């Protein structure tokens, strides 16, 4: 892929445009190779899943995308440009938001404050204006607050707006975390096992939210998930990893019928 002519946000329905491309990514921790030479792309507007057994390197891949890890080899291309090595907070400012496998919320803060903090990259007013509610700062705060309320409505968590998130049950915490990531209006949303540890009903809710986010906000989503049923239902394309290498890539149907994938991951006999 060459340098893309346009740099503005891509329209939601433009499946051909590549938002992010990973080229020959290799990540090592000392002598352990977590990711070996993996390439794949994420197209604007799609839901892209990364699956694989435990220890396959899925979370490492997500951490490479959001800058927690820096690969020893390979290139990351984002919006048509090769990305220089960056700190995670700089990558957040580029429009990549994420959730974590073991929920990482601001436990002392309310749901509302957590999601407001997600708008950090969207706040511009200087602090001395914010502290005294000066005109421009207040207008900005009101606009941000309105957006956050929209997200709260969207995720159906109005009832817990003021509750400190440390007290919420697991499923709701996951939802708040999704809300915080959405608040940044990301160009790319990374979800690290959004349904881990949930019951069937909570999983259905979360699947619906992910699809709605993709629909309504036009957000490109890359997710890691263990539950095969869910992955196949909601994703447009799937990357399969095993022992740090890529063993499959394609639509859910293509992946499902790939014998290598079946051997390595599904563990189902050929028939």
């Amino acid at each position: 892929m060459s340098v893309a002519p346009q740099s503005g946000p891509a329209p939601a329905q433009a499946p051909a445009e590549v938002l992010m491309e990973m080229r020959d990514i290799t990540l090592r921790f000392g002598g352990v190779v977590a990711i070996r030479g993996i390439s794949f792309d994420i197209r604007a507007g799609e839901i892209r899943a990364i699956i694989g057994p435990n220890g396959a390197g899925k979370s490492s891949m997500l951490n490479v995308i959001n800058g927690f890890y820096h690969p020893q080899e390979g290139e990351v291309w984002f919006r048509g440009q090769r990305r220089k090595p960056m700190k995670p907070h700089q990558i957040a400012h580029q429009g990549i938001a994420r959730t974590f496998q073991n929920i990482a919320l601001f436990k002392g803060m309310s749901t509302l404050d957590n999601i407001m903090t997600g708008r950090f990259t969207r706040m511009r007013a200087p602090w001395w204006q914010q502290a005294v509610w000066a005109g421009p700062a207040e207008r900005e705060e009101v606009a941000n607050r309105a957006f956050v309320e929209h997200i709260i409505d969207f995720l159906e968590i109005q009832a817990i707006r003021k509750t400190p998130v440390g007290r919420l049950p697991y499923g709701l915490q996951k939802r708040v975390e999704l809300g915080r990531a959405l608040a940044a209006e990301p160009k790319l949303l990374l979800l690290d096992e959004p349904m881990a540890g949930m019951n069937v009903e909570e999983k259905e809710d979360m699947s619906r939210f992910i699809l709605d986010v993709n629909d309504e906000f036009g957000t490109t989503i890359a997710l890691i998930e263990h539950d095969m049923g869910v992955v196949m239902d909601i994703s447009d394309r799937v990357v399969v990893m095993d022992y740090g290498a890529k063993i499959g890539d394609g639509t859910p149907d293509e992946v499902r019928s790939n014998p290598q994938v079946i051997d390595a991951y599904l563990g189902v006999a050929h028939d």
Partner: protein
Amino acid sequence: MSPTFLYTLEVILNGLMAGVMYALVALGFVLIFKASGIFNYAQGVMALFAALTLVGIQQGQVPFAHLINAVFGTEVRDFGWTVPTLLAILLALGVMVLFAWAVNALVLRHLVNQAPIILFMATIGLAYFMEGLGDLMWGSDLKTLDVGLPSGGSFWLEDVTRGWAAEGADYYGMYIDLLDVWATVIAVALVAALMLFSQYTRTGRALRAVADDHQAALSVGISLRVIWVIVWSIAGFVALVAGIMWGAKLGVQFSLSLIALKALPVLMLGGFTSIPGAIVGGLIIGVGEKLFEFSVGPLIGGATENWFAYVLALLFLVFRPQGLFGERIIERV
């Protein structure tokens, strides 16, 4: 009103104001502990250093004069000018911000992800380094700090309270140091400003976010390094305020760094993570030790102020380890 009641009232009032002075030091500890989980042993020395710097700038002292004289055989001491108080305070604040930046660039940056005990040890080293640096820069003699705040008793208050006592009673009015009153006013303003900052600004929200979860803070675009410089700068500012009030009260001397020790029991009472806790803890210790000295002290030979605060803190450690306002220790299983 009986003189005993009035005496008790006076003791309580003086205790409250002494408590405010403790709280000023405790505040600096809380700010840094909350945002980075570091117990900053150097907070007391920072207050001393800030006060030394303020006096030095105000009186136009040449920094490192002793060193310069020893090396070059010169006889420099003063620039021969004095700097207006407000400007000197701003310059001293600038020095504290510079210091905050240096601590992060030279020390903390290299200790990221180390155990808390290692960071704590680093701050002990920092404390001794700063004490030496303060000595080298500004000299070790006792200095008087005058920032133009009134001090001494209030005659007005003495006259008014004398009228409250019963006719013919042996009572000469209440003594309250005006400097303590000013310290209280300034502390209230400081806490109000800190609250507004942490509740309503994006940086304040980021501070609280970093305190809760580093990874999540990074993922929403918060730079830990910037936040830590800001936190240490604010702690430096609080140290400056504490240094000014303590320096004006006792003179700027190296024993000021020991006031930090009195902040420890304050923190144990109030909780290490709560700004209101630091204030209330300071007040309880201030009033507690004055009242105890006033009522029980004479029976056991006095000088109870030296240990009362620590015994109270010990009791709290046994029955309520998180302090009055500290975050409850909740474990979700």
